[in-house]
């Protein structure tokens, strides 16, 4: 087992999931409750990685973040190295590639919340941030858990984007999927079996957690205050 690759893969999946949840919650709230005409386009763009071949996405990211574009040159100047073929570049690619796996379960969770609760919160003066924090997120706990697990697993197993954008640099961009590919290519089927079995086991355990429907994320413990900011009378 390539422990370095395993650690890098888990690190990549954890960071990607954390970033995705920060992006997906407000994006899903906007897609669910927003009135902008741009919502349809945003929804289509969000779902694009589901149908786009990972190599296509990886190729365009490689070009966009490389020295041929102004953005790529600016990032290189800022970081001191190009994003392509670096761990940070992999994070950017993974966030984009796994975006629909985070956004779509949360959109479904928010959309399932009774509209009268949202009306009540708006009438009681909740702005968009407070509405999301005190009503949508607590009532869509299971959707958030599903989004987190799917994002994590999807990042764990990604191959095309990693190969195109990151290459195969040990300790920097070599993930378990790349290791598995190398092992198969070198006819080391025993090692490949260990790597594949590790990924398979991880996925089964995580998906079992999704379908186990943990009760504390369904109803949640009863809260005695609408939100921490109530004590200080803060406003959104």
């Amino acid at each position, binding site marked *: 087992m390539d422990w370095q690759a395993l650690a890098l893969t888990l690190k990549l999946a954890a960071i990607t999931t954390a970033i995705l949840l920060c992006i997906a919650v407000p994006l899903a709230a906007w897609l669910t409750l927003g009135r902008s005409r741009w919502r349809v386009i945003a929804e289509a763009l969000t779902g694009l990685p589901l149908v786009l071949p990972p190599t296509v996405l990886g190729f365009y990211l490689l070009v966009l973040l490389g020295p041929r574009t102004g953005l790529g040159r600016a990032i290189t100047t800022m970081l001191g190295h190009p994003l392509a073929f670096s761990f940070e570049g992999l994070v950017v690619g993974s966030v984009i590639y796994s975006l629909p796996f985070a956004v779509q379960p949360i959109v479904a969770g928010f959309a399932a919340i009774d509209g*009268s609760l949202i009306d009540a919160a708006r*009438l009681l003066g*909740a*702005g968009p941030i407070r509405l999301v924090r005190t009503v949508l997120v607590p*009532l869509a706990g299971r959707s958030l858990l599903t989004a987190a697990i799917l994002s994590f697993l999807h990042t764990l197993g990604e191959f095309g984007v990693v190969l195109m954008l990151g290459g195969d640099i040990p300790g920097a961009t070599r993930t378990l999927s790349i290791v598995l590919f190398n092992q198969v290519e070198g006819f080391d089927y025993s090692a490949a079996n260990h790597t594949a079995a590790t990924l398979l086991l991880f996925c089964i355990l995580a998906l079992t957690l999704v379908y186990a429907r943990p009760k504390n994320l369904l109803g949640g413990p009863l*809260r*005695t205050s*609408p939100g921490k900011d109530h004590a200080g009378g803060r406003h959104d």
Partner: protein
Amino acid sequence: MIELQLKAARDSFHLNIECTLAAPWTVIFGPSGAGKSTLLRLIAGLDRLNKPDSGRISVHGQYVADTRTGLHIPPGKRSIGLVAQQSALFPHLNVAANVAYGIANRIANMDRDARQQRVSSMLELVGASHLADRSPRALSGGEAQRISLARALAPMPQLLLLDEPMSALDAEARDEVLTRLQTWLLEQKIQTVLVTHDAADALATAAEVAVLREGKLAALGPASIVLADERNRLLVRLNSDGAFTTIV
């Protein structure tokens, strides 16, 4: 005082209303599907006036919606409380936290003690002090409606809209809560608009009644005049035991 000039098309009917509701307690009376709830949602700001709708709504001298200028003040900034048939309590918050929800949003710099005091007094007003620590899931329909009422009143809105808010209470409890509520709201100078399709409710509480039929204002005036026919029909149905049977 609410001033309405509305021409709004909805799925099944056209709302066409031009009137001023100035009484401290007004009942909007009409059959199901007359547009009563739609009207309340427009006043509250939960529904927008969009093209091809036209009109404007003013609450206490301030325009809250105007299609000429595209004005639409969000519901939370209108100082309006709305209690609907569906109590819509937040299931993840206990009763006291539900009642407290709007206070911090609407009233700046209210300290914790004052807020708890306000929650207690609102629960007392609706006869639900003993339910403060309960989960909304553990409440009966009538109890949930009382809590919903307390939650709407807690931020002390300038205008209270009640959309058949006591439908889950039995007649005796409804009369008791409505009588206590009416007295308190008049004391606090909170204008109230109650929507009902029940003539007995309208006659029991109304100083002024607006009758709505098929999206249009059919009559507006004192209950004794506007609902005279309804009153007579109720009296005719008074049975030998002295109990009323509503036929509306």
